[in-house]
């Protein structure tokens, strides 16, 4: 089984990396870019783990709920 985890900074948290990348995109001739937010994408290969446990790991290790939201997709 493959699990995909996407971790993104919460909307309420300033993402200075995203701001810097947006500014660079402006300098590269794309002034239309309004905002960029940078997160993490993780691909996990796992056999026989239950979904509840994966969610627990997403909350406790792969993301920090104070600043980030996550999305777990199982394939």
């Amino acid at each position: 089984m493959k699990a995909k985890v996407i971790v993104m900074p919460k909307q309420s948290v300033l993402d200075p990396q995203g701001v810097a990348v947006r500014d660079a995109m402006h300098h590269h001739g794309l002034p239309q870019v309004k905002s960029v937010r940078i997160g993490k994408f993780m691909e996990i290969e796992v056999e026989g783990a239950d979904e509840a446990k994966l969610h627990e790991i997403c909350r406790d290790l792969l993301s920090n709920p104070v600043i980030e939201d996550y999305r777990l997709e199982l394939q």
Partner: protein
Amino acid sequence: MKAAVIRFPGSNCDQDCFIALSEVLGVETHYVWHKETSLDAFDLIVLPGGFSYGDYLRCGAIARFSPVMQSVVDAAKQGKAVLGICNGFQILCEAHLLPGTLVRNQSLHFICEHRRLRVENIDTPWTCATWTGTLLNIPIAHGEGCYVADDATLLELNAHRQILLRYTDENGAATAAANPNGSAQNIAGICNRARNVFGLMPHPERACDPRLGSTDGKVIFESILATLGARKAA
């Protein structure tokens, strides 16, 4: 009195802490490797700065699951003194021993320079040897020291006087210009409600010897050692 300096793979301020505690303050200090599981022998537990596990995932996120951390959590819950400096502060936040967390500096720069810190509350074991409003000259050295917490947490930190240090200018004003990393409310260091766990981004251990430009960091260690000494004598 015994102090432990925990070593994680990637800790790099462990020796500075060891020397500050043992040579400057004269405390029996031991290194404790992160695979150890008992901290019973120690009165003061220090999580030093560095880049534990290469800051992979998030600063402190993996160190938090090191074997020794269960003992740190247990010790903190028993009321033992736990100090987290820089990466140590990040680990304490990840371990939920302190609220909030630390994210990338707003400027995106790694900042290594001396800063003025205002002591906000002396009614704690970590600041009792100084005065409220005292300005300390202590260096910071971090890329991820921007303190973030939700509004409810910030209200609670203020209500319970858990903010012990704020970044200020030379006159002691906590202005936006004096905030090196974008931390909420210029926060440089906080303690838990019980006051026995303290985390700060600045490096008091690098300000304990006049050859390093300042001895203002000593007061943090003197405070906790005086507190622990008084407890032992009682």
